């Protein structure tokens, strides 16, 4: 039941924030803060007492919703969703704190929308019923549309329209795929259901599966975003208010990655392997293209937005590598990108509050005025470029090693992205904080509230960089579950490609002292070790 409480607390908080907003603008902020903190504490407490566990799902809840269609309210938590939920609530709290002074009009309605988005994201990470998943997927959209459209910057209407239309169109394609999967499963087994666990392993002809997978992919690729479907991202991120950009970059994009891990790979094991080369190519394209465009921007927020495109390219590269190392890299990348890019957006917001411009040509030499902000900017730019000791390094390292096993060329090209990341990250620091002063600004350094926010983000990213193991261990069972079918398939392919003779040899037990006669030849020994290298 705790899973429902998590969502209901957010919804109740949203409702109360709205109605108290008219009396006093402080109330909605306090209510949202408390709702999110309660959720964070609940999830940490509840799960700390049940970890470590070998169960497939830490918490599993299933209620009937529309039995006529086989739709149920199926929520479940495993290691992957747990990690994402903690990120969600943590960054939700941060976003409320940073909007404390920035949003001063229609505060109640702002926090209503904010909490609704977070409730939608929570639902996306928890739902195991495909219809419910789509329901929450769409629930994230409308409040975000309002968030950008009402409290955004100059071109907000065009940005929010583009965001909505892109995401809705791709979401509808996913909807058709969900219904197609429902029918295919129903025809094959006779039971019509939207439940994820029952839809796993549906046997369907490969062409149908490919079409359905492409439908799902459409939604996740737009959300991630993957070049060339990324057009909505720079506009939406730039025109959104700071809290909106934070939630967009840090959380909404991760729902796309989560969808890939949770739905594409387990539901379509062989078709995703077929798509993998294209997926990795798109990932590499995103990394390099995003980095190139980031370097060219003069609007600081747009620059950071393009770095999101670049970093998310690593995610799709890792997802289509199909090994555990890469997947662990993907999880860490999701979290650390959320924290570091979120922190960069916070920084831009803090800067905008002071100087009311995002044009880096007007900045420069700000370190003297705002040393603390400069230090934060330096730390998060280092995180963005992948400095060891901070979370992003672990992520990119793991992804590149994992991708190397799958496709050498792509991982080499992706490594170039590290150089590109260095270029744009250093450009941020150099153009904004160091270098010549282009304009004389009068500004105050970070207030206590802002220092608390930045400090907690710094602690998070450093902790993730130095001690990633708790996160890795939490997510591991979930990732292994994702790869369960995958391993069999790739091993199967591997085995089928080689001689049948090797098949018998490779399944031989290890050499024992009794079997001195059956010394395997050096060739098969190499094959054995080759197998163990390819499937750790």
């Amino acid at each position, binding site marked *: 039941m705790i899973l429902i409480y998590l969502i209901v607390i957010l919804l109740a908080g949203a409702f109360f924030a709205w109605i108290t907003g008219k009396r006093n603008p402080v109330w909605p902020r306090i209510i949202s803060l408390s709702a999110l903190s309660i959720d964070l504490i609940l999830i940490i407490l509840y799960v700390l007492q049940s970890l470590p566990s070998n169960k497939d799902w830490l918490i599993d809840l299933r209620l009937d919703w529309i039995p006529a269609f086989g739709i149920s309210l199926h929520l479940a938590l495993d290691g992957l969703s747990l990690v994402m939920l903690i990120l969600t609530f943590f960054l939700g709290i941060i976003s409320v704190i940073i909007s404390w002074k920035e949003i001063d009009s229609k505060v109640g309605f702002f926090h209503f929308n904010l909490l609704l988005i977070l409730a939608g994201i929570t639902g996306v990470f928890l739902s195991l019923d495909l219809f419910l998943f789509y329901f929450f997927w769409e629930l994230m959209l409308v409040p975000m549309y309002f968030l950008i459209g009402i409290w955004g910057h100059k071109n907000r209407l065009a940005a929010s329209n583009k965001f909505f239309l892109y995401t809705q169109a791709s979401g509808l394609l996913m909807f*058709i795929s969900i219904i197609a999967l429902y*029918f295919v499963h129903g025809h094959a087994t006779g039971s019509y259901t939207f439940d994820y666990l029952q839809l796993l392993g549906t046997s369907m002809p490969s062409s149908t599966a490919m079409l359905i997978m492409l439908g799902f992919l459409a939604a996740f690729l737009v959300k991630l975003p993957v070049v060339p479907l990324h057009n909505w991202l720079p506009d939406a991120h730039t025109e959104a208010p700071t809290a909106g950009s934070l939630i967009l970059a840090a959380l909404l994009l991760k729902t796309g990655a989560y969808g890939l891990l949770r739905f594409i790979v387990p539901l379509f094991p062989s078709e995703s392997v077929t798509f993998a080369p294209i997926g990795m190519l798109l990932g590499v394209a995103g990394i390099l293209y995003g980095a190139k465009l980031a370097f060219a921007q003069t609007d600081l927020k747009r620059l950071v937005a393009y770095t999101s495109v670049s970093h998310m390219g690593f995610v799709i590269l890792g997802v289509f590598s199909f090994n555990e190392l890469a997947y662990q890299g993907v999880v860490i990348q999701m979290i650390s990108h959320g924290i570091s890019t979120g922190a960069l957006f916070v920084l831009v917001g803090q800067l905008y509050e002071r100087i009311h411009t995002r044009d880096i040509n007007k900045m420069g030499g700000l370190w003297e005025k705002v040393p603390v902000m400069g230090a934060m900017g330096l730390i998060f730019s280092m995180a963005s470029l992948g400095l060891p000791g901070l979370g992003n390094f672990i992520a990119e390292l793991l992804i590149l090693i994992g991708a190397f096993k799958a496709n050498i060329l792509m991982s080499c090209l992706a490594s170039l992205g590290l150089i590109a990341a260095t270029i744009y990250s250093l450009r941020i620091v150099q153009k904004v904080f160091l270098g010549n002063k282009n304009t004389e600004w009068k500004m105050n350094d970070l207030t206590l509230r802002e220092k608390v926010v930045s400090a907690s983000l710094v602690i998070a990213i450093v902790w993730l960089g130095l001690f990633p193991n708790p996160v890795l261990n939490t997510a591991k069972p979930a990732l292994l579950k994702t790869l369960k079918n995958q391993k069999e398939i790739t091993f199967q392919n591997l085995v089928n490609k080689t001689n049948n003779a090797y098949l018998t040899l490779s399944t031989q037990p290890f050499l024992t002292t009794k079997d001195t006669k059956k010394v395997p030849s050096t060739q098969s020994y190499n094959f054995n070790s080759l197998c163990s290298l390819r499937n750790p």
Partner: protein
Amino acid sequence: MTEKDFLCLTPFLIIAIAPVVIMIVISILRNYRVVYGFSVVSLLIAFCSIFFILPSLPHTIEPLLIIDIYSMFFLGIIFISALLVTFLSYDYIKQLEGVREEYYIIIFTSTLGASLLAVANHFVIFFLGIETLSISLYILIAFQRTKSNSIEAGIKYLILASVSSAFLLFGMALIYTAFGSMQFSVITAALVSHDPLSPLVIAGFGMMMVGIGFKLALVPFHMWTPDVYQGAPAPVSAYIATVSKGAVMAILIRFFFIIRGFNNHYLFIAISAISILSMFVGNILAIRQKNIKRLLGYSSIANMGYLIIILLTGSNKGIQASIFYLISYFITTLGAFGVITLLSTNEYEAEKIEDFKGLFWKRPWIAIVFTLSLLSLAGIPVTAGFIAKFYIILEGMKAGLMFLIISMIINSVIGLYYYLRIITMLFSTASDAKLPELSLIGNISLSFIGISILILGIYPGWLIDIIVKFVNL
């Protein structure tokens, strides 16, 4: 006629007697409130009488009427919509110059016509129902006799409706020639041998489709829709958009399933073409509209395009999907037009999109109901419209109508664009225009509509179970 016949006719008797009583009351005492209260009470009694006669169903009154649960669903929807339109029109009609109370008489006669369509088993009742409905609508549309818009809309509707009724009648005559009887049950019996339909029947149905397509505002019979929706008084637009379409849909579904038109190749192509054209024309032409009533008119063309897909599924489940869709569509349309009605006065009709600028900051509750209605029309989750669209997509995919479903999806995205434009206008910074005060009845009906949209969007199971259990044609 037996006693059971009269029992089953109770709703119709109430709806038929009520206008006569109102006429007498008006001649004695012309008081708006009394007439209004009486109409509301009569409609409520008529609605409750549906539940009263449920145990006696199904019942056929040879040879004209068939009263079964399918028709009771439609009767229920029609009465509730008429009731909601009456609620919403209280203030609007009160401010009308000239005669006011006769409005309610005409509402009853048109509701009677619509109800007859739901129980028709014979071409005569089909035609009687449509004509009663149409003639009452001529009067209702032109009710604001001092406004040229209204009279122009009325004349357009009069001429086009008469022409299309002529086609309808000719089509009925052709089918009569083919089968030798005008009674639906006889036609069903004649078709039981699964013979392919003769060209005479196809031609007859094609001509009937002109008349039916006009009433449902399907392409290419849709030209009257934006002008009439704009010119008619706002509650009357609400009435046309809901009751008249729902009633004609009832008879169309019944008749199409009787002649099993979905098996026939030519009819299949014809209905698919009409559906796809309606979807695209409705949505594309709505994009540039600046007048909300016209925009809602075009969007209703598109919505009927989505609904016609159901005819081609050829299964009972399709009919169940269409009933759910109609319920959701009725509530949604009444919500949208209700907001327009409540914000209009006799001098100034709130029909331009600019009139709604910043409505959320001045009258938040109405703006929320309007937003919910628009999101429901667009098919966003949490609203009833999403579940309805999902149901149609489900049944459509089950029947293999992939091309139509894909067009529906594309059109949903196109539709989203102009709905978002209105929603954005609702939330932009407020202008200084004065808005009329809202009546209690209007507020309550809008609240009811808003809450129903949400409830049907989040927990539609109960309604779907009822529909699935009882509706079987």
